[in-house]
Structures are given as structure tokens and as C-alpha cells.
């Protein structure tokens, strides 16, 4: 595989993995209206958990330090990552949904992601601080050639993103999806007809959290590691922008936004020559571009490119509205 083919394959893999991530946030934010500013922290939780599950125990007194180290195989490690991400999400939700005012919710979630980032970065015995967990591997990585691994992982990611899409879409078109949106629009009105908004929000939150964990686990094993540099607030912005631009609340829209924004801006970046002695310039410019896209859509078309489609009457009922029964 030459460099160009490699590029295409890895772009495809990243597109699929980002797709998983964006579907989860779309469920929480787009459909249910929970602005989860700690979403990427959940992704990190999944990544780190998978990491410490897959890696062997940290050597005593060595330079590298982290908790855990179970030496589990890939599937178990990934499952562990998802489970831990769900636990984290549950605790987060429990704290955040405590009948708090709407603005406290945003505040709490923001504070959590800020604080967790600080702790993980500064307290090395936990997850090796700035270095993070390294040396992770995907399935069969030892047996495959680098090319083979790339292709395999592309296939793996596609399978996962399609499966995630199917699950989320099923939730979305079911009455449960309608309930998510009702809670998003007006919690009190939904409660007034007997809907338990805490249960609904927690359900959406957990599914989104599981997706985040899965995405984090897969990215970490694909790239071989996870460190605070890979995970900062800017990542949440990229996902948020993808949802706002692509189609708020609509899974397909979120995927579209993810492909357009993340791949578009990433790809554009690859073709711009490295700007001399300022390697930090390109990511910064990409960040500004992403932010501007978000602002532009919020200002002119907040529903995004693929707007949510309102529920319509089924054909049979339409016939009946023409001939009223009363």
C-alpha cells in the first residue's frame, strides 16, 4: 500500500470512528437536549479504561505508572472500556440531573471535564499524567502486517459505526425517540402527562455514554495510546460543530456533519504545507474554522443541513382526516 492508499484507508477509519463519537453526542444533545460538555471526558474514560485493561501491570518503580493493568485481550478490554464509561456516565448523570437548574447542568458538566483533565494530567500515579497510556494494540496486530492491520481496522470500524447507527436509529424512530425530543422541548409538559424526565434523560445519557466509551476504546487501540493531548476540550467542539452543521437530532445528519467538518477540515489541513517553524498554527486555524462553521450555522440555520423531520400521519390516518368521524 502506497502513501496515498494508506492515507485514504486511515481517513476512512477516522471517519468511521468519529462517526461513532458524533452519534453518541447527538443522542445526548441533539435529540434529548443535554449539552454534555463532558462528552469527550467520557470518551477519554473509555479509552483509558480499555488501555489499563489491555496493558500488562505497570512495572514497579518504573518510569511508567498507571492503575490497573489486567492484560486482557482486545474484546474484553473494549467491553471493559464501555462498561467503565457507562459507570462514569451514570455518576455524572446522577450528579447533573439532580433537579438542577438548566444552567447549573452546563456548569456542572463543564466543571467536571475541566477538573478531570487537570487531575489526570497532574497526578501521574493515576494514568501517567501527560504521557498517558501507550502501547495499546488492536486485534491481531501482531499477526498482521501494518497494511493488513490498517485494512482490518477499517473494516472493524465500519462494522462498529454501522452497528451503532442501527441501534441509535432504532431508538430514534421508536416512541422512545419521540420521548427524548419531548423532554428536550419541554420537560414540564412531558411530566404533566406522566413522563419521568429523569429516567428518559438518564437512558439517553447512558446510551450516549456507552457510545462515547466505545469510540474512545477503538480510537485508543487504533492509534496505540491515549494521552491528555489527544483529549481536550477542542474535541468536544468538533463533535458539537458536526452536529449543529450536519443536522441537530438526526443521526444521519450528525454523520454527515462529521464527515464534512472533521474530514473536510482535517483533509484540508493535510494538503497545506507545514508552515515553517509554527507547527501549532495549522491546528489552531482548523479550530477557528470549525468554530466559525458552528457560529455560521447557529446564526443562519440552527437545525443543520439535514433537519429533523417532524412526525407525520400514516397514510391510513391521512385518509381519515379528510372524512372526519364526528
Amino acid at each position, binding site marked *: 500500500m502506497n502513501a496515498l492508499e494508506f492515507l485514504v484507508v486511515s481517513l476512512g477509519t477516522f471517519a468511521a470512528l468519529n462517526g461513532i463519537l458524533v452519534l453518541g453526542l447527538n443522542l445526548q444533545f441533539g435529540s434529548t437536549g443535554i449539552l454534555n460538555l463532558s462528552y469527550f471526558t467520557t470518551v477519554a474514560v473509555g479509552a483509558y479504561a480499555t488501555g489499563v485493561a489491555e496493558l500488562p501491570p505497570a512495572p514497579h518503580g518504573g518510569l511508567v505508572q498507571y492503575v490497573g493493568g489486567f492484560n486482557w485481550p482486545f474484546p474484553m478490554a473494549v467491553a471493559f472500556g464501555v462498561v467503565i464509561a457507562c459507570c462514569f456516565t451514570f455518576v455524572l448523570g446522577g450528579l447533573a440531573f439532580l433537579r438542577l437548574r438548566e444552567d447549573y447542568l452546563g456548569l456542572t458538566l463543564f466543571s467536571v471535564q475541566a477538573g478531570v483533565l487537570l487531575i489526570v494530567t*497532574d497526578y501521574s500515579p493515576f494514568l501517567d499524567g501527560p504521557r498517558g497510556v501507550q502501547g495499546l494494540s488492536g486485534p491481531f496486530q501482531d499477526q498482521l502486517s501494518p497494511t493488513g492491520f490498517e485494512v482490518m481496522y477499517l473494516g472493524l470500524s465500519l462494522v462498529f459505526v454501522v452497528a451503532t447507527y442501527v441501534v441509535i436509529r432504532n431508538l430514534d424512530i421508536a416512541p422512545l425517540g419521540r420521548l427524548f425530543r419531548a423532554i428536550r422541548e419541554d420537560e414540564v409538559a412531558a411530566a404533566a402527562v406522566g413522563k419521568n424526565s429523569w429516567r428518559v434523560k438518564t437512558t439517553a445519557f447512558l446510551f450516549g455514554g456507552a457510545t462515547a466509551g466505545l469510540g474512545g476504546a477503538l480510537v485508543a487501540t487504533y492509534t496505540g495510546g491515549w494521552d491528555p493531548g489527544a483529549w481536550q476540550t477542542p474535541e468536544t467542539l468538533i463533535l458539537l460543530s458536526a452536529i449543529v452543521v450536519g443536522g441537530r437530532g438526526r443521526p444521519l445528519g450528525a454523520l454527515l456533519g462529521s464527515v464534512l467538518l472533521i474530514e473536510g477540515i482535517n483533509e484540508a489541513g493535510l494538503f497545506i504545507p507545514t508552515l515553517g517553524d509554527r507547527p501549532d*498554527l495549522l491546528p489552531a486555524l482548523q*479550530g477557528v474554522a470549525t468554530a466559525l462553521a458552528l457560529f455560521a450555522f447557529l446564526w443562519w440555520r440552527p437545525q443543520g443541513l439535514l433537519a429533523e423531520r417532524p412526525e407525520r400521519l400514516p397514510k391510513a390516518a391521512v385518509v381519515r382526516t379528510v372524512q372526519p368521524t364526528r
Partner: protein
Amino acid sequence: MNALGFGLVDASILAIAALGFTLQFGVTNYVNFAYGAFLTFGAYMALAANVEPFHLSIWPAMLIGGVCTAIFGLLLNQFFLAPFVARRRGLIFALIVTFTLSLMLGDIYIIIWGSDFKELDYSGTVAHEVGPFLWSNYDIAFMFITGVVLLAVHLLLTRTSLGRSMRAMGDDLNLARVCGIRTEAVVAATWGISAFLAGVAGVMLAIEQRTFTTTLGDNFLFLILGSVILGGIGRPAGAVIGAVVIGVAVQIGVLFIPSGLAPVLVFVALIGVMLLRPQGLMGATPRPPGQL
């Protein structure tokens, strides 16, 4: 004892920052996640005044940092935030906008100033023993400045019509409008004041930390949020009390736990507040959350 002393210094900087944050929230009723970027802006403005190209002494540079940030905040509100809030009413939009703004500003700072570490230019620090505490001349200066600022803000809120208008808006926006308060003007002025305080705090922080980069304010924002939630969001007195508690608690806390775990203390405070008294020590402003 020294820890308490350092805690008070931290608390001073935190108090100014938290005050600016809570004043703005009290009037606009939405969180400014980009507040950290305001602190950073102040530091960079002071850098330009202090190091290159103006070579002023640190104290005028601090003032300039504050004033420049104030202007920045005013412009930001006038041409960006206020129009957005007017066009897309809804708390979630305001939160997304300020959150996105915080990241975009961080990137813009990198583009303009680069991500290397900068240093302000100020003459040597001298340690003084004041009673049981060990403070440098700068520490003492910071606490003095904070005292002046607190007094000034107190007078503003209690003696001026602007201050009264700010407090009225914190209670109920519609009522304030009905009473003839020019809410847009008050919002504008509040952004200026809030940004000024942020800028000054940012310069202080840059001095205290010796070197700084584009993420100066972002890391501090966590402590600021802890202080205002603890004290009661929208309440100036609460912000100050919260700042003192957090500032002192962190300094004393790191005597017992590894410094990397210091944020855990803030988390404990936050969780405690959320569970036991969500409105904070002083109680939050009564204005309903959706009312922008």
C-alpha cells in the same frame, strides 16, 4: 500557617476573577465559558505594554491589561454576544456560543502569539514576614489591590444607579425593563466591568505563575467556577466568600494530599454544594434560568 498565607493570596486573585464572573452572570443570566480567555487576554495585553514594545513598568501594564480586556469584552458583547442572544433566544445557544468562543479565542491567541511560554517583566520579589505569614511584596500588593477592587465594586453596586440596575436585573429581567432600566446598556457596561476584572486577575496570575501561555485562564476557570458555585452564582459577596474558601482550602489541602489531586478538593466542594445547598452559601439570584 504559611499555607494559610499563600491561600489568602490565591484567594485574592480568585476573588477578583470570581467577582467579575458572577457580576456578568447576574446581569446576563448565562454562563460565560470564555471567561478564562478574558484572563489570558489581559495577560497578553500586559505583556505588550510591559515587555514588547512599550516597556512600561508592571503596574501600569496591569492597568492597561485590565482596560484592554474591558474594551475587548465590550466589543465582543456589542457585535457578537448580544446579537446572538437576541436572535437565538435560549440558554443552550448562549452556552454553546460562549463555549465555542472560549476555544476559538484560545486558537486565535496561538495564531497571534504562538504557544510558547511568555514572561512578564517585573523587578525582583522580596519576601516579608507579616506576623505568622510569609509574603512577597507582590503578594501584599495583590491583596491590597483586591481590597481596593472589592471596595470599588461594593460602592458601585450600592451607591450608583448602574449598580442598582445590575442588581435589579439579577432579580428579574422583565421587571427591570418595566421599571425603565435600559437593559442593553447595563449589559454592555457589565461586560466591560467583568472583562476588566478578568484582565487584572489574568495579569496577577501571570505574575504569580511567572510564565504563562495561551491556556492561562482556562485552567484557572475551574477554580473560579468552584468559587462562584460554592458562594452562590450571581452573588458578589458569595463569589468573594467562595474564593476565600477555595483559595485557602486548596493551599491547606495540598499539605495533606498530592498537589496533582488538588482539584479533587474543589470537586468535593462542588458535589457537596450540589447535594446539600445547590443555591450556594449566599443563595443564587432569583432570576429564572431561561430568562435571557
